């Protein structure tokens, strides 16, 4: 039988297997990874920051100050590990569950909180919830309809190729998102045009209440890349070193003109889907307990301590330092004034056409009248 295709590139074993560097308890599975100590400590610090910030966003939502939050807990390694492989000039097309990726790109906790609380400094001017981004970090804010960003990452990568820029784009999306047309058309284009893009699938096992087996009959998500001529690599998404390692390989492939890669980071959403969700309706507690044992921070902490790169005391100090810094930022941001109402009518076009100019008058008149009537709307 004749075998079509390049088996070597579309290595099916890597799409069906699971790459890891550390086991669930933080012991190296095959030799010591040879990464600089500082990088290993940075990985852990970014994950700690993401975890603390995630907790605050949850708390602020319960206080009624944030409209909605999609908890990241348990998925920090995939976001941090993958984005650490990017260079500053590379572009990121995130989804709504990658606080760690935002921090790695240089976004500050204050910028993230301004966004979430739609303060006067909200860089996205109150447009939507649970999405983050900023031009100065080459992070394009996610659309809430899932998977929409996937073809955008392909298009931007293709544009860079056409314009002769040696940059790479990376996009994040969930397991449920792979059922949408955007995912399939994105992979197909990327394969055909060898776009310098890295697809990072955060397979957290659930799309709200729908388990992975209801999304796909494929044995893995990574294997879907193979059918589009895009190498798929399945990796332990709770092993930050493993994620970083495969992301580096994918980024380098893309940058050297060899085309796209689909990375499936196998992980688990430990919290609810969003602050509006109640996971007890659809999943059992034992499953969550089991994945708590495999969560990425515990694993990395144990590894760093066993390598002598971190002591218990230093770990405590790291946590309390960031807890303090982030709490101070929260207090500061909570005191900022809200966005002015006029933002509602801004940024629809470069210049507002006549209808929006008229509606600006209507808005202002209505605000005056509401005051006169003594009516509080929000």
């Amino acid at each position: 039988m004749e075998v079509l295709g390049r088996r070597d590139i579309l290595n099916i074993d890597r799409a069906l297997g699971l790459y890891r560097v550390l086991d669930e308890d933080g012991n190296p599975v095959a030799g010591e990874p040879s990464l600089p100590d500082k990088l290993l400590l940075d990985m852990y610090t970014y994950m700690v920051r993401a975890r603390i910030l995630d907790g605050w966003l949850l708390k602020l939502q319960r206080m009624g100050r944030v409209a909605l939050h999609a908890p990241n807990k348990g998925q920090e390694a995939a976001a941090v590990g993958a984005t650490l492989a990017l260079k500053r000039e590379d572009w990121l097309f995130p989804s709504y569950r990658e606080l760690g990726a935002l921090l790695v790109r240089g976004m500050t906790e204050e910028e993230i909180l301004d966004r979430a609380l739609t303060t006067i400094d909200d860089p996205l001017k109150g447009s939507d919830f649970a999405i983050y981004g900023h031009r100065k970090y080459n992070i394009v804010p996610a659309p809430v309809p899932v998977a929409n960003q996937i073809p955008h990452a392909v298009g931007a990568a293709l544009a860079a190729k056409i314009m002769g820029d040696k940059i790479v784009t990376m996009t994040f999306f969930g397991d449920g998102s792979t059922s949408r047309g955007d995912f399939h058309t994105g992979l197909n284009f990327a394969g055909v045009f060898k776009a310098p893009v890295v697809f990072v699938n955060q397979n957290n096992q659930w799309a709200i209440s729908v388990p992975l087996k209801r999304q796909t009959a494929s044995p893995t998500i990574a294997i879907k890349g193979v059918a589009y001529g895009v190498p798929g690599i399945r990796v332990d998404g709770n092993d930050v070193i493993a994620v970083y390692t495969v992301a580096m390989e994918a980024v380098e492939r893309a940058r050297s003109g060899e085309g796209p890669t689909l990375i499936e980071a196998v992980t688990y959403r430990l919290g609810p889907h969003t602050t509006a969700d109640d996971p007890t309706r659809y999943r059992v507690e034992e499953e969550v307990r089991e994945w708590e044992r495999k969560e990425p921070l515990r694993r990395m902490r144990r590894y760093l301590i066993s390598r002598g790169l971190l002591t218990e005391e230093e770990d405590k100090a790291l946590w309390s330092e960031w807890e303090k810094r982030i709490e101070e930022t929260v207090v500061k941001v909570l005191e900022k004034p809200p966005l002015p109402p006029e933002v509602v009518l801004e940024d629809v076009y470069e210049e507002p056409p006549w209808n929006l100019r008229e509606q600006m008058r209507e808005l202002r008149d209505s605000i005056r009248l509401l005051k006169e009537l003594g009516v509080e709307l929000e």
Partner: protein
Amino acid sequence: MPVMNMVQALNQALREEMARDPRVVVLGEDVGRRGGVFLVTEGLIDEFGEMRVIDTPLTEMGIIGVAIGMALYGLRPVAEIQFIDFVYEAFDQIVSNMAKIRYRSGGMYSVPMVLRSPCCGGIRGGMHHSQSPEAYFMHTAGLITVMPSTPYDAKGLLKASIRSNDPVIFLEPKSVYRTIKEEVPDRDYTVPLGKARLVREGSDVTIVTWGAMVYQSLEAAKLVEERHGWSVEVIDLRTLFPFDRDAIVESLEKTERLVIVHEAPKTVGPGAEIAAYIAENHIELLRGPIARVTGFDTPFPLAHEKLYMPNIARIYMALKKVMQY
């Protein structure tokens, strides 16, 4: 008679229709174990099983395309789009197929399905959990578009929609889901498609509205009555297309003034069609210009949504303009 909110009334409508007619199936994202994100399909999977209450992969195009195929073959699918803001992936299937198969097949095939979905703003849902895209559907020949504003109407209209032989877009104003409660009969009844409801009688000016804006309009009506003594009639359109032109004309014969209130943006919005219909056919009834109070011509914002949506002040301003013309 039991008192219910809209979620409970819709749930009962689905339950009764599924029990009455084995061809009725429910499909969508999270409609099974989760019971839908707003719990409209809660418990159905226990009663009717996984073959009739189907948790689908996450693709609106797939949900609607597959539901169309089911309807062609003989089922009566009720497909849930989790939020109407996510329907756009399915537009090709809706516009090119759901709406056109009857015509394309010379009447041999039809697509008796319901696309039901939470719509509209008022719950701090931001840009992609708040939209009112009814105009797209009203503009598409072959579709019936419905939006109830009360639990009673929700149950009766959903049952009528499931029994319709034409495809129905059934939009549920989510801000009303749990805020309005009323007596809803435990028994089978329908509310006819194409018929408006007179919500409040008045003699000076008519407000035509639907969905959650019924309640804003009632508040504004009360305000101008107190302040100016103007008597406002409020009509809840319920079926947006084909809309109940007779109900509007009958009211205008009395009031001679028209204000249209909807959450959808103004430009080429649903109100434009109603205004054009009256201007083309009944200009003689009107004493002055028609006014529209609508969502602004922008994406739906997260910040200041209550200022973006028609509110008591903006409806008041329009009533004043029309009354003092």
